[in-house]
Protein backbone atom coordinates (compact mmCIF):
# COMPACT_ATOMS: atom_id res chain seq x y z
CA UNK A 1 0.00 0.00 0.00
CA UNK A 2 2.82 2.27 1.01
CA UNK A 3 4.83 1.33 -2.06
CA UNK A 4 1.81 2.06 -4.26
CA UNK A 5 1.59 5.53 -2.78
CA UNK A 6 5.27 6.10 -3.37
CA UNK A 7 4.85 4.95 -6.93
CA UNK A 8 1.97 7.36 -7.46
CA UNK A 9 3.93 10.16 -5.89
CA UNK A 10 6.94 9.41 -8.08
CA UNK A 11 4.72 9.30 -11.17
CA UNK A 12 3.16 12.63 -10.25
CA UNK A 13 6.55 14.15 -9.60
CA UNK A 14 7.92 12.85 -12.90
CA UNK A 15 4.86 14.08 -14.74
CA UNK A 16 5.01 17.54 -13.17
CA UNK A 17 8.75 18.28 -13.11
CA UNK A 18 9.43 18.43 -16.90
CA UNK A 19 6.60 20.94 -17.24
CA UNK A 20 7.95 23.07 -14.42
CA UNK A 21 11.30 23.08 -16.23
CA UNK A 22 9.49 23.84 -19.48
CA UNK A 23 8.10 26.91 -17.75
CA UNK A 24 11.66 27.93 -16.84
CA UNK A 25 12.67 27.27 -20.44
CA UNK A 26 9.87 29.51 -21.70
CA UNK A 27 11.06 32.31 -19.40
CA UNK A 28 14.67 31.83 -20.53
CA UNK A 29 13.61 31.87 -24.20
CA UNK A 30 11.58 35.01 -23.62
CA UNK A 31 14.37 36.83 -21.77
CA UNK A 32 16.99 35.88 -24.36
CA UNK A 33 14.58 36.74 -27.16
CA UNK A 34 15.02 33.27 -28.63
CA UNK A 35 11.36 33.27 -29.59
CA UNK A 36 12.37 35.52 -32.47
CA UNK A 37 14.84 33.00 -33.83
CA UNK A 38 12.88 29.87 -32.94
CA UNK A 39 9.20 30.89 -32.85
CA UNK A 40 7.85 27.40 -33.49
CA UNK A 41 9.99 25.96 -30.71
CA UNK A 42 8.66 28.63 -28.39
CA UNK A 43 5.11 27.80 -29.48
CA UNK A 44 5.88 24.12 -28.86
CA UNK A 45 7.00 24.86 -25.29
CA UNK A 46 3.86 26.90 -24.57
CA UNK A 47 1.66 24.24 -26.14
CA UNK A 48 3.25 21.52 -24.01
CA UNK A 49 2.65 23.54 -20.84
CA UNK A 50 -0.94 24.36 -21.80
CA UNK A 51 -1.57 20.71 -22.68
CA UNK A 52 -0.22 19.60 -19.31
CA UNK A 53 -2.49 22.01 -17.42
CA UNK A 54 -5.51 20.82 -19.40
CA UNK A 55 -4.68 17.14 -18.89
CA UNK A 56 -4.09 17.58 -15.16
CA UNK A 57 -7.46 19.31 -14.87
CA UNK A 58 -9.19 16.45 -16.69
CA UNK A 59 -7.21 13.79 -14.80
CA UNK A 60 -8.28 15.16 -11.46
CA UNK A 61 -11.92 14.93 -12.54
CA UNK A 62 -12.94 11.24 -12.12
CA UNK A 63 -15.83 11.43 -14.61
CA UNK A 64 -13.80 12.88 -17.46
CA UNK A 65 -12.02 9.75 -18.64
CA UNK A 66 -13.28 10.01 -22.20
CA UNK A 67 -12.56 13.71 -22.43
CA UNK A 68 -9.08 13.02 -21.11
CA UNK A 69 -8.47 10.48 -23.90
CA UNK A 70 -9.68 12.94 -26.57
CA UNK A 71 -7.66 15.81 -25.13
CA UNK A 72 -4.57 13.61 -24.90
CA UNK A 73 -4.96 12.56 -28.54
CA UNK A 74 -5.51 16.13 -29.73
CA UNK A 75 -2.51 17.41 -27.79
CA UNK A 76 -0.35 14.59 -29.11
CA UNK A 77 -1.31 15.39 -32.71
CA UNK A 78 -0.65 19.10 -32.17
CA UNK A 79 2.68 18.27 -30.59
CA UNK A 80 3.63 16.08 -33.59
CA UNK A 81 2.82 18.92 -36.02
CA UNK A 82 4.80 21.45 -33.97
CA UNK A 83 7.79 19.12 -33.75
CA UNK A 84 7.91 19.02 -37.55
CA UNK A 85 7.92 22.81 -37.46
CA UNK A 86 10.78 22.80 -34.96
CA UNK A 87 12.82 20.47 -37.18
CA UNK A 88 12.23 22.80 -40.12
CA UNK A 89 13.34 25.73 -37.99
CA UNK A 90 16.50 23.95 -36.88
CA UNK A 91 17.37 22.90 -40.44
CA UNK A 92 16.92 26.47 -41.68
CA UNK A 93 19.25 27.64 -38.94
CA UNK A 94 21.84 25.00 -39.85
CA UNK A 95 21.91 25.96 -43.53
CA UNK A 96 21.49 29.68 -42.88
CA UNK A 97 24.93 30.72 -44.11
CA UNK A 98 25.02 28.95 -47.45
CA UNK A 99 22.71 29.70 -50.34
CA UNK A 100 24.05 26.68 -52.17
CA UNK A 101 23.38 24.29 -49.28
CA UNK A 102 19.88 25.66 -48.80
CA UNK A 103 19.05 24.40 -52.28
CA UNK A 104 21.00 21.15 -52.17
CA UNK A 105 19.99 20.20 -48.64
CA UNK A 106 16.33 21.03 -49.18
CA UNK A 107 16.16 18.54 -52.03
CA UNK A 108 18.02 15.87 -50.08
CA UNK A 109 15.83 16.38 -47.02
CA UNK A 110 12.71 16.14 -49.16
CA UNK A 111 14.00 12.81 -50.44
CA UNK A 112 14.74 11.58 -46.92
CA UNK A 113 11.27 12.68 -45.73
CA UNK A 114 9.59 10.89 -48.62
CA UNK A 115 11.50 7.70 -47.89
CA UNK A 116 10.77 7.82 -44.17
CA UNK A 117 7.08 8.55 -44.78
CA UNK A 118 6.89 5.54 -47.06
CA UNK A 119 8.45 3.31 -44.38
CA UNK A 120 6.05 4.78 -41.79
CA UNK A 121 3.01 4.04 -43.95
CA UNK A 122 4.26 0.51 -44.70
CA UNK A 123 4.75 -0.07 -40.98
CA UNK A 124 1.27 1.20 -40.21
CA UNK A 125 -0.15 -1.21 -42.80
CA UNK A 126 1.89 -4.29 -41.96
CA UNK A 127 2.33 -3.84 -38.21
CA UNK A 128 -0.71 -1.89 -37.03
CA UNK A 129 -0.45 -3.02 -33.39
CA UNK A 130 -4.09 -3.88 -32.88
CA UNK A 131 -4.20 -4.24 -29.10
CA UNK A 132 -5.99 -1.71 -26.91
CA UNK A 133 -8.86 0.62 -27.71
CA UNK A 134 -9.26 1.67 -31.32
CA UNK A 135 -8.58 5.39 -30.82
CA UNK A 136 -5.59 4.74 -28.57
CA UNK A 137 -4.14 2.12 -30.92
CA UNK A 138 -4.57 4.46 -33.89
CA UNK A 139 -2.96 7.36 -32.06
CA UNK A 140 0.02 5.24 -31.06
CA UNK A 141 0.51 4.06 -34.62
CA UNK A 142 0.45 7.68 -35.85
CA UNK A 143 2.83 8.65 -33.05
CA UNK A 144 5.15 5.79 -33.97
CA UNK A 145 5.22 6.78 -37.65
CA UNK A 146 5.77 10.46 -36.84
CA UNK A 147 8.51 9.65 -34.31
CA UNK A 148 10.28 7.56 -36.91
CA UNK A 149 10.15 10.31 -39.54
CA UNK A 150 11.22 13.00 -37.07
CA UNK A 151 14.04 10.91 -35.62
CA UNK A 152 15.24 10.08 -39.13
CA UNK A 153 15.13 13.73 -40.17
CA UNK A 154 17.14 14.82 -37.15
CA UNK A 155 19.72 12.11 -37.77
CA UNK A 156 19.89 13.19 -41.42
CA UNK A 157 20.57 16.76 -40.26
CA UNK A 158 23.38 15.54 -38.02
CA UNK A 159 24.85 13.54 -40.89
CA UNK A 160 24.60 16.52 -43.24
CA UNK A 161 26.36 18.75 -40.77
CA UNK A 162 29.14 16.24 -40.33
CA UNK A 163 29.40 15.55 -44.05
CA UNK A 164 29.67 19.21 -45.02
CA UNK A 165 31.52 20.35 -41.91
CA UNK A 166 28.68 22.67 -40.92
CA UNK A 167 28.93 24.33 -37.56
CA UNK A 168 25.82 24.29 -35.41
CA UNK A 169 24.86 27.24 -33.32
CA UNK A 170 24.59 26.14 -29.72
CA UNK A 171 20.81 26.67 -29.25
CA UNK A 172 19.95 24.97 -32.54
CA UNK A 173 22.15 21.98 -31.69
CA UNK A 174 20.60 21.76 -28.23
CA UNK A 175 17.09 21.84 -29.64
CA UNK A 176 17.95 19.20 -32.25
CA UNK A 177 19.69 16.98 -29.70
CA UNK A 178 16.85 17.16 -27.18
CA UNK A 179 14.22 16.57 -29.81
CA UNK A 180 16.27 13.73 -31.29
CA UNK A 181 16.48 11.96 -27.93
CA UNK A 182 12.79 12.59 -27.31
CA UNK A 183 11.71 11.23 -30.69
CA UNK A 184 13.95 8.16 -30.50
CA UNK A 185 12.62 7.28 -27.04
CA UNK A 186 9.13 8.02 -28.35
CA UNK A 187 9.73 5.68 -31.27
CA UNK A 188 10.77 2.82 -28.99
CA UNK A 189 7.91 3.57 -26.59
CA UNK A 190 5.17 3.77 -29.20
CA UNK A 191 6.44 0.61 -30.92
CA UNK A 192 6.31 -1.31 -27.64
CA UNK A 193 3.11 0.37 -26.51
CA UNK A 194 1.35 -0.75 -29.67
CA UNK A 195 2.26 -4.36 -28.82
CA UNK A 196 2.09 -4.51 -25.04
CA UNK A 197 -0.89 -2.76 -23.59
CA UNK A 198 -1.00 -4.50 -20.19
CA UNK A 199 -1.03 -2.28 -17.10
CA UNK A 200 2.44 -3.14 -15.77
CA UNK A 201 4.09 -2.56 -19.15
CA UNK A 202 2.26 0.72 -19.67
CA UNK A 203 3.29 2.00 -16.25
CA UNK A 204 6.91 1.04 -16.81
CA UNK A 205 7.03 2.57 -20.31
CA UNK A 206 5.36 5.74 -19.08
CA UNK A 207 8.04 6.13 -16.42
CA UNK A 208 10.75 5.73 -19.05
CA UNK A 209 9.20 8.23 -21.43
CA UNK A 210 8.61 10.87 -18.78
CA UNK A 211 12.18 10.36 -17.53
CA UNK A 212 13.50 10.84 -21.06
CA UNK A 213 11.32 13.92 -21.47
CA UNK A 214 12.77 15.39 -18.30
CA UNK A 215 16.30 14.80 -19.60
CA UNK A 216 15.43 16.49 -22.92
CA UNK A 217 14.01 19.56 -21.22
CA UNK A 218 17.17 19.80 -19.10
CA UNK A 219 19.27 19.52 -22.28
CA UNK A 220 17.28 22.35 -23.86
CA UNK A 221 17.75 24.54 -20.80
CA UNK A 222 21.47 23.72 -20.66
CA UNK A 223 22.09 24.55 -24.30
CA UNK A 224 19.92 27.67 -24.36
CA UNK A 225 21.59 29.04 -21.24
CA UNK A 226 25.14 28.25 -22.35
CA UNK A 227 26.94 31.14 -24.05
CA UNK A 228 27.62 30.92 -27.78
CA UNK A 229 31.24 30.10 -28.63
CA UNK A 230 32.91 33.15 -30.16
CA UNK A 231 34.52 33.16 -33.60
CA UNK A 232 38.02 31.79 -33.86
CA UNK A 233 40.87 34.12 -34.63
CA UNK A 234 41.71 34.05 -38.31
CA UNK A 235 44.65 35.03 -40.44
CA UNK A 236 44.86 35.20 -44.20
CA UNK A 237 46.96 33.05 -46.51
CA UNK A 238 47.33 33.89 -50.17
CA UNK A 239 46.37 30.84 -52.28
CA UNK A 240 43.26 29.53 -53.89
CA UNK A 241 43.49 25.79 -54.21
CA UNK A 242 39.89 24.86 -53.54
CA UNK A 243 38.90 26.42 -56.85
CA UNK A 244 41.56 24.40 -58.70
CA UNK A 245 40.18 21.18 -57.23
CA UNK A 246 36.65 22.32 -57.98
CA UNK A 247 37.57 22.96 -61.58
CA UNK A 248 39.41 19.65 -61.87
CA UNK A 249 36.54 17.58 -60.49
CA UNK A 250 34.02 19.43 -62.63
CA UNK A 251 36.12 18.75 -65.69
CA UNK A 252 36.46 15.09 -64.75
CA UNK A 253 32.74 14.68 -64.21
CA UNK A 254 31.91 16.43 -67.48
CA UNK A 255 34.31 14.23 -69.36
Amino acid sequence: MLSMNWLRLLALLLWTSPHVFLGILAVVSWKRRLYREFPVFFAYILCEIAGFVLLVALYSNPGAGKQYAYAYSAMLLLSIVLRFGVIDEVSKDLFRESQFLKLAARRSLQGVTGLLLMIGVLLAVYAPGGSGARLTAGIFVVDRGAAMVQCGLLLALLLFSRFFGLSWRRPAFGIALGLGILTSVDLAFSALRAEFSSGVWTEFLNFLVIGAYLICVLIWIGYLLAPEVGPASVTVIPRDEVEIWNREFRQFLKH
Partner: protein
Amino acid sequence: MEQGVSTISQALISQTMISQSLISQSLIAAWTLVAVAFFALAILVYAAIRSRSRRVDLEKAVETFRSLDIEAFRNLVDSAEEAFLRDNLTPRKFREIKRQRAWAALIYAWEAGLAATALAKVGQSAQRSSDPEIAATGLQVAESAFRLRLQTIGACFHLLTEVVLPGVRSRSLPPLVDQYERTAETLFRLGRFSSGMHRLVRSKGA
Protein backbone atom coordinates in the same frame (compact mmCIF):
# COMPACT_ATOMS: atom_id res chain seq x y z
CA MET B 1 -20.96 -34.33 -41.13
CA GLU B 2 -17.46 -35.46 -40.14
CA GLN B 3 -16.13 -33.94 -43.32
CA GLY B 4 -17.80 -30.65 -42.43
CA VAL B 5 -16.27 -30.64 -38.95
CA SER B 6 -12.83 -31.38 -40.38
CA THR B 7 -13.21 -28.50 -42.91
CA ILE B 8 -14.17 -26.09 -40.11
CA SER B 9 -11.29 -27.23 -37.92
CA GLN B 10 -8.89 -26.85 -40.83
CA ALA B 11 -10.19 -23.34 -41.45
CA LEU B 12 -9.80 -22.50 -37.76
CA ILE B 13 -6.25 -23.86 -37.71
CA SER B 14 -5.27 -21.87 -40.79
CA GLN B 15 -6.91 -18.75 -39.32
CA THR B 16 -4.98 -19.23 -36.08
CA MET B 17 -1.75 -19.68 -38.04
CA ILE B 18 -2.41 -16.49 -40.02
CA SER B 19 -3.14 -14.47 -36.88
CA GLN B 20 -0.06 -15.95 -35.18
CA SER B 21 2.09 -14.98 -38.14
CA LEU B 22 0.59 -11.46 -38.10
CA ILE B 23 1.33 -11.15 -34.38
CA SER B 24 4.91 -12.32 -34.83
CA GLN B 25 5.32 -9.95 -37.80
CA SER B 26 4.05 -7.13 -35.65
CA LEU B 27 6.33 -8.13 -32.78
CA ILE B 28 9.36 -8.29 -35.06
CA ALA B 29 8.51 -4.82 -36.38
CA ALA B 30 8.18 -3.50 -32.83
CA TRP B 31 11.53 -4.86 -31.66
CA THR B 32 13.20 -3.72 -34.88
CA LEU B 33 11.94 -0.21 -34.20
CA VAL B 34 13.23 -0.41 -30.64
CA ALA B 35 16.66 -1.42 -31.99
CA VAL B 36 16.55 1.45 -34.52
CA ALA B 37 15.57 3.87 -31.76
CA PHE B 38 18.47 2.78 -29.56
CA PHE B 39 20.86 3.05 -32.49
CA ALA B 40 19.61 6.59 -33.15
CA LEU B 41 19.99 7.39 -29.46
CA ALA B 42 23.58 6.14 -29.50
CA ILE B 43 24.38 8.36 -32.52
CA LEU B 44 22.84 11.38 -30.81
CA VAL B 45 24.79 10.82 -27.60
CA TYR B 46 27.96 10.36 -29.64
CA ALA B 47 27.27 13.61 -31.54
CA ALA B 48 26.68 15.45 -28.27
CA ILE B 49 29.94 14.19 -26.74
CA ARG B 50 31.87 14.91 -29.93
CA SER B 51 30.51 18.42 -30.23
CA ARG B 52 31.89 19.15 -26.75
CA SER B 53 35.27 17.50 -27.00
CA ARG B 54 36.25 17.96 -30.65
CA ARG B 55 39.13 20.27 -31.37
CA VAL B 56 39.89 20.43 -35.06
CA ASP B 57 43.36 21.47 -36.07
CA LEU B 58 42.41 23.67 -38.99
CA GLU B 59 45.95 24.62 -39.79
CA LYS B 60 46.66 20.95 -40.25
CA ALA B 61 43.55 20.60 -42.40
CA VAL B 62 44.77 23.30 -44.78
CA GLU B 63 48.15 21.61 -44.96
CA THR B 64 46.49 18.27 -45.71
CA PHE B 65 44.55 19.91 -48.48
CA ARG B 66 47.70 21.41 -49.93
CA SER B 67 49.50 18.09 -49.77
CA LEU B 68 47.01 16.57 -52.23
CA ASP B 69 48.78 16.44 -55.56
CA ILE B 70 46.42 17.86 -58.16
CA GLU B 71 48.79 16.97 -61.00
CA ALA B 72 48.83 13.33 -59.97
CA PHE B 73 45.05 13.29 -59.83
CA ARG B 74 44.83 14.95 -63.23
CA ASN B 75 47.14 12.31 -64.63
CA LEU B 76 45.12 9.47 -63.12
CA VAL B 77 41.87 10.62 -64.73
CA ASP B 78 43.35 11.82 -68.01
CA SER B 79 41.36 10.37 -70.91
CA ALA B 80 44.26 10.65 -73.38
CA GLU B 81 46.40 8.59 -71.04
CA GLU B 82 43.62 6.07 -70.78
CA ALA B 83 43.28 5.86 -74.56
CA PHE B 84 47.03 5.31 -74.86
CA LEU B 85 46.91 2.47 -72.33
CA ARG B 86 43.89 0.93 -74.04
CA ASP B 87 45.70 0.92 -77.39
CA ASN B 88 48.98 -0.48 -76.11
CA LEU B 89 47.94 -3.05 -73.54
CA THR B 90 46.12 -6.34 -73.73
CA PRO B 91 42.45 -6.01 -72.61
CA ARG B 92 43.16 -8.02 -69.47
CA LYS B 93 46.22 -5.94 -68.52
CA PHE B 94 44.37 -2.73 -69.40
CA ARG B 95 41.50 -3.59 -67.05
CA GLU B 96 43.95 -4.37 -64.27
CA ILE B 97 45.84 -1.10 -64.72
CA LYS B 98 42.67 0.93 -65.09
CA ARG B 99 41.24 -0.53 -61.91
CA GLN B 100 44.41 0.45 -60.03
CA ARG B 101 44.37 3.96 -61.49
CA ALA B 102 40.70 4.41 -60.68
CA TRP B 103 41.28 3.19 -57.14
CA ALA B 104 44.15 5.64 -56.64
CA ALA B 105 42.03 8.49 -58.05
CA LEU B 106 39.20 7.43 -55.75
CA ILE B 107 41.48 7.79 -52.73
CA TYR B 108 42.48 11.26 -53.95
CA ALA B 109 38.85 12.27 -54.39
CA TRP B 110 37.95 10.92 -50.95
CA GLU B 111 40.81 12.78 -49.29
CA ALA B 112 39.90 15.95 -51.17
CA GLY B 113 36.35 15.55 -49.83
CA LEU B 114 37.58 15.27 -46.26
CA ALA B 115 39.83 18.27 -46.77
CA ALA B 116 36.87 20.18 -48.22
CA THR B 117 34.88 19.46 -45.06
CA ALA B 118 37.72 20.82 -42.96
CA LEU B 119 38.01 23.88 -45.21
CA ALA B 120 34.30 24.49 -44.93
CA LYS B 121 34.86 24.81 -41.20
CA VAL B 122 37.66 27.28 -41.84
CA GLY B 123 35.38 29.29 -44.10
CA GLN B 124 32.54 29.31 -41.59
CA SER B 125 34.89 30.32 -38.83
CA ALA B 126 36.22 33.17 -40.96
CA GLN B 127 32.65 34.19 -41.82
CA ARG B 128 32.14 35.14 -38.20
CA SER B 129 35.18 37.39 -38.20
CA SER B 130 34.71 41.04 -37.31
CA ASP B 131 36.86 42.00 -40.32
CA PRO B 132 34.39 42.31 -43.25
CA GLU B 133 37.01 41.35 -45.81
CA ILE B 134 37.88 38.12 -44.00
CA ALA B 135 34.19 37.41 -43.44
CA ALA B 136 33.49 37.84 -47.18
CA THR B 137 36.41 35.60 -48.13
CA GLY B 138 35.28 33.07 -45.55
CA LEU B 139 31.87 32.95 -47.17
CA GLN B 140 33.42 32.24 -50.55
CA VAL B 141 35.75 29.58 -49.16
CA ALA B 142 32.85 27.88 -47.38
CA GLU B 143 30.61 27.93 -50.46
CA SER B 144 33.41 26.64 -52.61
CA ALA B 145 34.23 23.91 -50.10
CA PHE B 146 30.57 22.81 -49.97
CA ARG B 147 30.51 22.55 -53.76
CA LEU B 148 33.77 20.63 -53.73
CA ARG B 149 32.43 18.24 -51.09
CA LEU B 150 29.42 17.44 -53.20
CA GLN B 151 31.55 17.06 -56.32
CA THR B 152 33.90 14.63 -54.59
CA ILE B 153 30.94 12.37 -53.86
CA GLY B 154 29.97 12.44 -57.55
CA ALA B 155 33.56 11.72 -58.49
CA CYS B 156 33.82 8.90 -55.93
CA PHE B 157 30.72 7.18 -57.35
CA HIS B 158 32.08 7.68 -60.82
CA LEU B 159 35.45 6.21 -59.93
CA LEU B 160 33.90 3.37 -57.98
CA THR B 161 32.03 2.38 -61.16
CA GLU B 162 35.36 2.35 -62.97
CA VAL B 163 36.91 0.17 -60.27
CA VAL B 164 34.05 -2.32 -60.53
CA LEU B 165 33.67 -2.14 -64.32
CA PRO B 166 37.07 -1.17 -65.71
CA GLY B 167 36.23 -2.26 -69.24
CA VAL B 168 33.27 0.10 -69.66
CA ARG B 169 34.13 3.03 -71.89
CA SER B 170 31.10 5.30 -71.53
CA ARG B 171 30.96 7.47 -68.42
CA SER B 172 27.59 9.00 -67.84
CA LEU B 173 27.07 11.69 -65.24
CA PRO B 174 25.33 10.66 -62.05
CA PRO B 175 22.00 12.49 -61.71
CA LEU B 176 23.07 14.14 -58.47
CA VAL B 177 26.09 15.69 -60.11
CA ASP B 178 23.97 16.68 -63.09
CA GLN B 179 21.58 18.41 -60.74
CA TYR B 180 24.45 20.03 -58.93
CA GLU B 181 25.91 21.33 -62.19
CA ARG B 182 22.62 23.00 -63.11
CA THR B 183 22.31 24.62 -59.69
CA ALA B 184 25.94 25.73 -59.67
CA GLU B 185 25.63 27.14 -63.18
CA THR B 186 22.55 29.15 -62.22
CA LEU B 187 24.26 30.53 -59.19
CA PHE B 188 27.39 31.20 -61.20
CA ARG B 189 25.35 33.30 -63.61
CA LEU B 190 23.97 35.21 -60.69
CA GLY B 191 27.53 36.06 -59.86
CA ARG B 192 27.56 34.27 -56.54
CA PHE B 193 30.41 31.99 -57.48
CA SER B 194 32.49 34.38 -59.52
CA SER B 195 36.14 33.51 -59.30
CA GLY B 196 36.83 36.31 -56.90
CA MET B 197 38.24 34.11 -54.22
CA HIS B 198 41.82 35.14 -53.92
CA ARG B 199 42.58 34.04 -50.46
CA LEU B 200 42.17 31.05 -48.30
CA VAL B 201 41.56 31.64 -44.69
CA ARG B 202 43.44 29.84 -42.02
CA SER B 203 42.09 29.56 -38.53
CA LYS B 204 44.01 28.71 -35.43
CA GLY B 205 41.21 27.04 -33.49
CA ALA B 206 37.77 25.50 -33.89
